[in-house]
C-alpha cells in the first residue's frame, strides 16, 4: 500500500470546508483543501468586480458565525473584524418610514409613532426570541442523534435533547414548537398589529426559501436568522471589514497556521472509490491525489450524486438526495455608485445609511412578490435587503464613492422559459426600478451593475439551483434529516467519505457550525 501525503482532502474552499480543515489541521492531521475557483470562500467571497470597488458578491452580512469557532481558531488575529450594522429602515408606501434603531428608547419612540401597542409588545417579543435562541443554541452545537437508532451514542443524544426540551418549561417549549411549524406572518400576528413591522420582521423568514411569509415553515427560517450572536447579543448582525471574503480568508489563515495546505484553481472532477472506500480524488486537470479520507464541503447533490457514481450508494439514499429540495429563490444585485443615494422618506446622509434598508412595505407586498415566483416569474416588485457596505467600511470603495449590496427575493431558479442574458437584465431592471421608487436619484448614481440570478449563483459557486443554504431550511430537511435520514452525522455510505457543507446540520448562512461539527465527528469527539 502506498502512503499518501495527506490524511484528508477537503473538497471546496467554502467557509465550512475551511473551518473543517482548520480544526483537523489543529488536531495534527495533514489536510489539503481543493477549491475550484481562484478565490476562497464560496458564497462568502469579496471580489473587486469593478476597479476600486470591492463587493461581498453573495453573502454580505454576518451574525451566525459561531463564537466558539472565532475563539478556537483565533480568527481576529487572522483578520476577522466585525463592524456594527445597527439599524433597519423600511420605507413605506405613503412616504413615511419605519425605523428600527439600536437604542431601545429611540426604537420604542419610533414604533410608537406607528403603533403604541406594538411598541410595548416589542420588548416582550425580543425577550421571547432571546429565549428561543438560547433554547436552540445547544442544538446548533450538537451532532444530530438518530432517533431510530439504538446505538448508545444516539440514545444518549436523544436523552440529552429530551432533557433539554424539558428544561425549557411548557411556555418556551410551546413557543418553540410554534416557531418550528407556523408561518412567520401568523407567528408575528400573535404579537403585532402594524403591518409594515410584521412585513419587515417576517422577511427573515423567507430569505433563501421558496416560501412566502404566509407559508407554514417560514417561522423556523425566521428563528434561524435570530440565532446569531455578536458579543453575546442575540440577533445582532454585523459587517465584516473587507467583506465576507475576509471571513473566509481569516479562516483560511487559521487553517494554514495549523499546517493545512490550500490550493485554488483546483476543481475536483471525481471522488475515487474502490470497493466501497475512498482512495482519493481526481482533479479536473486530470491529476489524482490520494488520501484515505475525503470530505466534501459541497451541497448534498454534488457530494452524493455528482462527485461519486450512483452505483456506489444504496438506492434509497440516491432517491432521498434526489428529492432533497433546493429551489433557489434569491438573487443579488451589486452596484457601484458615484455618490450616496437619497432615501425619499429620509433624505440626506444620516446614520440610517449605515444600516439596512428593507423594501418590505407590507405583508401583501411580500406575498405578491412570492405569487410571481410561484408561477415561475421573478417578482416584479421584490423584497430587498439593501446595505451600503462602504458606509460601514470606507475601504470598500474609493473615497466619496459607494458600493450597494441588494439581496433580492424572489427570483426562481426554474424561471418560465429559463434564464438568459435578457431575462437577467430584465430582473436587474425590476430591482433597480423598484428601488428607485424609494431612492429617486439612485439611477443617476450607478457606475456599474452586477446582476446575479440563481442560475448565476449556481454557475459561479456551485450551489445547486442557487439555493443559498445548500438546500432549503425546511423542517423535513433539518437536524437528523439533513441532508438525508440516517446520514445526518457527516458520514456518507462510502467509507472514508464525509460531508461538511451547509447542506448538513445545522445548515446555511456564514455559521461554520457544519464544518466544525463534521471535524468533531471525524476526530471522534462528541
Amino acid at each position, binding site marked *: 500500500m502506498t502512503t499518501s501525503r495527506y490524511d484528508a482532502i477537503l473538497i471546496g474552499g467554502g467557509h465550512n470546508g475551511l473551518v473543517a480543515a482548520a480544526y483537523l489541521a489543529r488536531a495534527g492531521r495533514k489536510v489539503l483543501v481543493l477549491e475550484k475557483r481562484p478565490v476562497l470562500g464560496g458564497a462568502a467571497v469579496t471580489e473587486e468586480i469593478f476597479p476600486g470597488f470591492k463587493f461581498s458578491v453573495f453573502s454580505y452580512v454576518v451574525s451566525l458565525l459561531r463564537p466558539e469557532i472565532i*475563539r478556537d481558531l483565533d480568527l481576529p488575529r487572522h483578520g476577522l473584524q466585525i*463592524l456594527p450594522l445597527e439599524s433597519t429602515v423600511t420605507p413605506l408606501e405613503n412616504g413615511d418610514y419605519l425605523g428600527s434603531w*439600536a437604542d431601545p*428608547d429611540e426604537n420604542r419612540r419610533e414604533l410608537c409613532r406607528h403603533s403604541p401597542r406594538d411598541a410595548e409588545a416589542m420588548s416582550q417579543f425580543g425577550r421571547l426570541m432571546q429565549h428561543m435562541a438560547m433554547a436552540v443554541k445547544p442544538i446548533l452545537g450538537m451532532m444530530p442523534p438518530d432517533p431510530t437508532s439504538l446505538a448508545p451514542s444516539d440514545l444518549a443524544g436523544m436523552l440529552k435533547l429530551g432533557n433539554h426540551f424539558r428544561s425549557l418549561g411548557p411556555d418556551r417549549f410551546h413557543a418553540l414548537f410554534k416557531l418550528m411549524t407556523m408561518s412567520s406572518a401568523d407567528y408575528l400576528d400573535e404579537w403585532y398589529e402594524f403591518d409594515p413591522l410584521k412585513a419587515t420582521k417576517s422577511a427573515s423568514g423567507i430569505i433563501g426559501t421558496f416560501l412566502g411569509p404566509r407559508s407554514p415553515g417560514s417561522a423556523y427560517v425566521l428563528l434561524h436568522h435570530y440565532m446569531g450572536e455578536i458579543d453575546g447579543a442575540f440577533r445582532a448582525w454585523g459587517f465584516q471589514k473587507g467583506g465576507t471574503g475576509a471571513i473566509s480568508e481569516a479562516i483560511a489563515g487559521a487553517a494554514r497556521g495549523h499546517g493545512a495546505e490550500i490550493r485554488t484553481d483546483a476543481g475536483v472532477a471525481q471522488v475515487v472509490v474502490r470497493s466501497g472506500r475512498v482512495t482519493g480524488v481526481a482533479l479536473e486537470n486530470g491529476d489524482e491525489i490520494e488520501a484515505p479520507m475525503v470530505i466534501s464541503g459541497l451541497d448534498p447533490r454534488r457530494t452524493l450524486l455528482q462527485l461519486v457514481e450512483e452505483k456506489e450508494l444504496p438506492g434509497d439514499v440516491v432517491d432521498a438526495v434526489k428529492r432533497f429540495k433546493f429551489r433557489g429563490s434569491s438573487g443579488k444585485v451589486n452596484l457601484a455608485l458615484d455618490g450616496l443615494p437619497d432615501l425619499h422618506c429620509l433624505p440626506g446622509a444620516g446614520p440610517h445609511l449605515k444600516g439596512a434598508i428593507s423594501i418590505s412595505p407590507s405583508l401583501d407586498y411580500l406575498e405578491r412578490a412570492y405569487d410571481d415566483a410561484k408561477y415561475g416569474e421573478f417578482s416584479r416588485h421584490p423584497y430587498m435587503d439593501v446595505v451600503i457596505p462602504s458606509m460601514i467600511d470606507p475601504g470598500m470603495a474609493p473615497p466619496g464613492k459607494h458600493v450597494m449590496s441588494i439581496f433580492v427575493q424572489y427570483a426562481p431558479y426554474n424561471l418560465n422559459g429559463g434564464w438568459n442574458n435578457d431575462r437577467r437584465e430584465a430582473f436587474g431592471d425590476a430591482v433597480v426600478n423598484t428601488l428607485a421608487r424609494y431612492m429617486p436619484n439612485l439611477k443617476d448614481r450607478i457606475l456599474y451593475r452586477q446582476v446575479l440570478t440563481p442560475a448565476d449563483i449556481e454557475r459561479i459557486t456551485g450551489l445547486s439551483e442557487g439555493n443559498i443554504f445548500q438546500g432549503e431550511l425546511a423542517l423535513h430537511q433539518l437536524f437528523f434529516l439533513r441532508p438525508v435520514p440516517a446520514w445526518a452525522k457527516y458520514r456518507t455510505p462510502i467509507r472514508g467519505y464525509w460531508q461538511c457543507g451547509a447542506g448538513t446540520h445545522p445548515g446555511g448562512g456564514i455559521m461554520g457550525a457544519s464544518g466544525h461539527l463534521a471535524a468533531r465527528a471525524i476526530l471522534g469527539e462528541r
Partner: protein
Amino acid sequence: MLKTTPFHPRTAPLVRAQTWRRWAGYQVASSYEPHPDREYAAVRNGAALFDVSPLHKYMISGPDAERLLDRMVTRDVTKCRVGQVLYTPWCDASGKIIDDGTISRLEEMRFRLTAAEPNLRWLTMNAVGLDVTIEDVSERTAALALQGPLSRAVLEQVSPADLAALRYFRLVETTIRKIPVTISRTGYTGDLGYELWVDATRALDLWDALSDAGAAYGITPAGIWALDLARIEAGLVMLDVDYHSAHHALIEAQKSSPFELGLGWTVPATKPGPYNGRQALRSERESPRAWAFVGLEVSWESFEALHLDRGLPPHLPVIAWRVSQPVYRNGAQVGYASSGCWSPLLKRYIALAHLEASNSDPGTAVTMEVTVEHRRCQARAVVRSLPFFDPERKRA
C-alpha cells in the same frame, strides 16, 4: 458649571443622548450616539475624532527648559530632539508616580508638556533657580486626536505636511487649510493616529476642516467610552483608574512606581542628570519588585457557564468598567484588576490588573471576581502580557 471646550459649539449638537461626563473640570462626550459601537469601530477601521482639549498643557521655555524637564521626569530629555515627543511619567523623591504625559520639543528651548492633572505648582517648585518660563496654556490651546487607520489619509487631504514621513512620536508644525497647527503622531488608542494642537480661537475652523475633508473617509466624532475600550486593548494606564498620583495617595499602598505599572521602559538605566526619584528607582531596578501590571483574559467558557447557571446569556461589559475587582490564585488574593471590557476587536474579555509579581507570569491561571445576578463569583482568567493589541500600522 463645568467648563466647556473650544469645540463645544460643534460637539454639543452631536451628543444625541446627552451622555456627557467630566474630565479635568470640563464637560466632554462619553459618546455621541447612545452606544459607542460605531465610534469604537472608527478607531480600528476608519478615523475617529476625539476632543482632548481638557488635557493640562504647559509651555516651558527658556535656556533651562530642557534642564527643568529632565530633572522632573524619568526619561532622558537631553536626548529629545526638536520635533520629537516623549511619553514619560514623573515621580516624587521616593520614585512613586505623580502623573504621566507627553513632552514635545517644539524648539531647542521650547517644550509642551501635557498632564492629566494640574502640575503648575510642581513645575514651579522644580524650577527654583532655573532660567525658565512656565506658562499654563491649557485654555489657550485646543486639542483633537484623530485616530484610526484612515487618519493619515484624512490629514493628507488638508495639510501640506509630508505625513508619510512623520514617524511615530514625532511632530510637525504645519497648517490645516491655512490654520496653523502642530500635528504629532501620538495618541491614546494604540493605533495609527495623530494629535492636533491648535490655538483655541481657531478650534472651530479646524473641526470644520476635518469634518469636511474626512466625510469621504467616514470620519466619526468619538467619545470617552470608545477611547476607553481602545486604550485598554492597547494596555495604556489611566490616572485615577489604574493608578493614583503619589500626590493624592492617602496611604503608601496606593502609590505605584513606574516598574510596578509596566513603565520600567521609561526609566533609563543610565541617565546623566539627576532627576526626581532617581535614587529610589535605581535601587528598585536592582531588587525584586513586589507588583506587576499585566493583562488578564477572562475565560469565555467560565464566564458563560456562570451565567448559564442562572439561566442567563453572558452579560458582557461592552462599556469598560473602572472599579477594582479582586484577583485570586489557588484561593488566595494575589491582586486586583483596575479596568476591563469586552474587546469588540479581539472578541475577548480583557482587563488590566495589578498582581503580585510572583503570580504575574504570562499564562498563569487565576480567577477574577465577577458579579452575576447579584452574586459574587469567580471567573477563570489567564495572565497575558500587554498590550493586547499592537498593530504594525501604529509605527509603520
